[in-house]
């Protein structure tokens, strides 16, 4: 339990705020990108990259490093910010995102970008890839844990549920699924476009242990990630209830901000609101 570790919680909260500000600048500069889904994942990513993951940016290919897969690849900007701030590449490189010759592609590219474990873009892949990593680990001497961040959109794809079947068959406890459940997708509210509820029951019926948290509460994120490590009899999913566009008033819970680019005025307002989130 991390309840008394105020310094840690504050540090992660600050990193989440940095991620939001970086993403705003990146999307505005590039006039493209995905703000809403980056903001719903900010605390989850900050909890992973600034505390939980066993990784070493100076040795990014250590065989026993933890693996993180961003299945919801459209949150690429948030991942790039976390990786840069964690030291995988210079912070200034964020400004190259989307330019010709940049190591930062529109969606994550494992070949080009240090620290990106797997390329992603189209939804649905991460869970099955994590299962493959876990099965392979059982044949290796190195021990590590695998994390996959899925979106609600991910979980509308058939291939994701195929992966859940396989995770259950092989009792994959070496991987933790984190679901950024913001219930808003490109075309509208998730529960209108393609309802996932009853989600907890679905995961349980697929053989998963389910932990539900408020995904913007860092204490809950950290505790859930630790709890999942102690579950060895079945795979675990952390359903993180989140808010799409979290942190900017006019973006929150709005499908438009899945992929919209702010105007100059909106950029200034968002920047102002996000600077207030700092402490």
């Amino acid at each position, binding site marked *: 339990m991390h309840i008394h570790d105020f310094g840690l919680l504050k540090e992660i909260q600050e990193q989440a705020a940095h991620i939001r500000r970086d993403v705003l600048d990146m999307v505005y500069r590039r006039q493209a990108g995905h703000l809403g889904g980056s903001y719903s994942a900010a605390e989850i990513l900050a909890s992973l990259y600034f505390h939980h993951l066993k990784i070493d940016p100076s040795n990014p290919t250590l*065989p026993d490093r933890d*693996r993180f897969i961003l299945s919801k690849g459209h949150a690429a900007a948030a991942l790039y910010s976390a990786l840069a701030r964690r030291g995988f590449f210079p912070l200034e490189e964020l400004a190259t995102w989307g330019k010709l010759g940049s190591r930062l592609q529109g969606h994550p*590219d*494992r*070949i080009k970008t240090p620290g990106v*474990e*797997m*390329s*992603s*873009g*189209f939804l649905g*892949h991460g869970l*099955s*890839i*994590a*299962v*493959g*990593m*876990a*099965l*392979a*680990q059982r*044949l*290796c001497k190195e021990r590590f844990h695998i994390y996959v961040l899925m979106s609600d959109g991910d979980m509308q794809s*058939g*291939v994701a549920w*195929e*992966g859940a*079947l*396989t995770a259950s*068959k092989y009792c994959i406890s070496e991987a933790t699924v984190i679901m950024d459940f913001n219930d808003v997708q490109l075309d509208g509210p998730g529960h209108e476009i393609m309802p996932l509820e009853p989600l907890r029951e679905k995961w349980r019926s697929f053989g998963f242990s389910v932990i539900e948290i408020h995904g913007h509460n860092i204490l809950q994120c950290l505790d859930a990630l630790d709890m999942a490590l102690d579950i060895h009899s079945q795979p675990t999913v952390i359903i993180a209830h989140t808010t799409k566009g979290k942190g900017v008033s006019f973006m929150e819970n709005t499908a438009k901000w899945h992929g919209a680019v702010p105007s100059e005025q909106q950029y200034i307002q968002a920047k102002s609101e996000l600077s207030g989130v700092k402490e």
Partner: protein
Amino acid sequence: MSDIPQRQAYGQALADYGDKNQDVVVLDADVSTSTLTSYFAARHPERFFNLGVTEASMVDVGVGMALIGKTPFVNTFAALLTLRACEQIRTCVSYANTRVKLIGGYSGVSDYKDGPTHFATNDVAVMRSLPNIAVLSPADNREAAALVPLVAEWDSPVYMRISRAVVPDVFDASYEPRIGKGVVLRDGDDVALLATGSMVARCISASARLAERGIDAAVVAFSTIKPLDGDLVNATARKTGALVTAEEHTVMGGFGSAVVEVLARLGPVPVEMVGLADTFAETGPDPETLMDAWGLSVEDIVRAAVMVLGRKSHRSNR
């Protein structure tokens, strides 16, 4: 070796290679007793994963294994692998350049009894369009078996199609295939028959019939369709001035297309393409009869050779 189906030669070779290479893991989608990865499963159960009818997910599971340093052989029927799991292959194998070895069983029309739903007649066209992936189509059992270690050790993804059928022997025991290299099986000056997979043996038969007519036909086998041995294609075209391509696949986007893409760049010669026309074909009584009925017969190759020779002489007389 020609008394056993090509799938059996592959399955046995994979199990044997599993003895030598502990990094090999094998995945199958509930058709292991058809693809005959069941041999590997019996000998190396701890490295065999039967994932049921989850073809798309199976490819991604293989990707995860490759990312941890294993050498996954991902098996199912070629049509399911290359079509149902196509986006997984495109994004997570081809684009991400993961060392996944995709093995498409029941290629071409070799699953004659199950019919067009089960035929794989555009798998080469699909896989050839994906960067980073080598595309292989062995001609006989010896080649299929010999390619298994090369596929495993090739430092990027591979797609290899394997026939369900018994295919005639083409190569002798001294033959050692190399990925990216074609091989001249018969020299000839008048016309060259360029073939891949099951059509290599049929081209050898066609060359004998052509010889009876006084036509000196070369036969060149290409087990690698991508990266195609463009130098050999070009040299053969320059030497004979007329080519026939032959494949158990549609003529749209497959091996023949790859050949003419090379020629378009380096200097065209007349080409006739033997393969399936724009059709699904149909269920048949056996693979040979079915191939004969749908434009893949020895006589179809002979006819194509005669036709292309006519175009060649017409050209040289101009």
